[in-house]
């Protein structure tokens, strides 16, 4: 299956300083827990899942997630941050094979 296509969504129009802003993130990933058996072969599907997600806004961390194989595939993560000044929200996903994915979008503060 497809892996990658990390996406970050922030408001497309300028926001006010101090406003709570919704950030939506999505990535294509199988999130195999290592506990699932393949229906046809009966063999255990090896683990392959995202272990961490980090979000940084204007260079400061705003959210650090630790994930296990119990997070759904193609994981969506939405969170909120307080807009301070115009700057990027940078999100980094890492999986258990050491693969890293990054996406970034800029929040514009009017």
């Amino acid at each position, binding site marked *: 299956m497809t892996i990658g296509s990390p996406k970050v969504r922030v408001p497309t129009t300028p926001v006010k300083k101090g406003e709570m802003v919704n950030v939506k993130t999505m990535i294509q990933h199988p999130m195999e*827990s290592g506990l699932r058996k393949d229906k046809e072969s009966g063999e255990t599907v090896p683990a392959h899942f995202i272990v961490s997600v980090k979000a940084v*806004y204007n260079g400061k*961390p*705003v*959210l650090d997630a630790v994930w*296990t194989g119990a997070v759904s595939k193609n994981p969506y993560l939405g*969170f*909120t941050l307080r807009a301070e000044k115009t700057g990027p929200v940078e999100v980094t996903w890492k999986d258990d094979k050491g693969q890293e994915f990054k996406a970034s979008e800029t929040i514009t503060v009017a």
Partner: protein
Amino acid sequence: MENKDFLVVNRRGFFRSAGVAGVAVAMGTVMTGVPKTAAADINALIAEQVGQGNITMDKVVVDTPDKAENGAMVRIPVVVNHPMEPNNYIEKVAVFVDDNPKPFVASYTFFPESGKVDIEFRLKMAKTSTVRVVAKNNTGALFGFSKKIEVAEGGCSG
């Protein structure tokens, strides 16, 4: 409510979800095959993530339906009604599904700059289970939420 009550809720939820075990109890027989993730173990997992202490069943809100059609994708929105100021903020939120093979699902670390704890993600549930969310503030105080979610079709790979 304190930790003790948290446990009681857990046990009740467990009996309700484990139909066969429930019958065994009703007949006064000894239960066998109690899942490893019964009360004591869940509390150990919670302590591992957020430390030990009384969990106040307050401030954490998870607005999720009682029933999930698809255990492979159960929507979990978490809001914690707590200030997010430099000296008074929620540091960590951890999520557990009691009856998953591995109950610890995810943890989220926050910062005063986060502004508000308001997140949403999706998790897998192997079967009907209690879902727990525990939040820790920067002084180590714990706040919790728990709810049984019925699963129509298991996510099989939790």
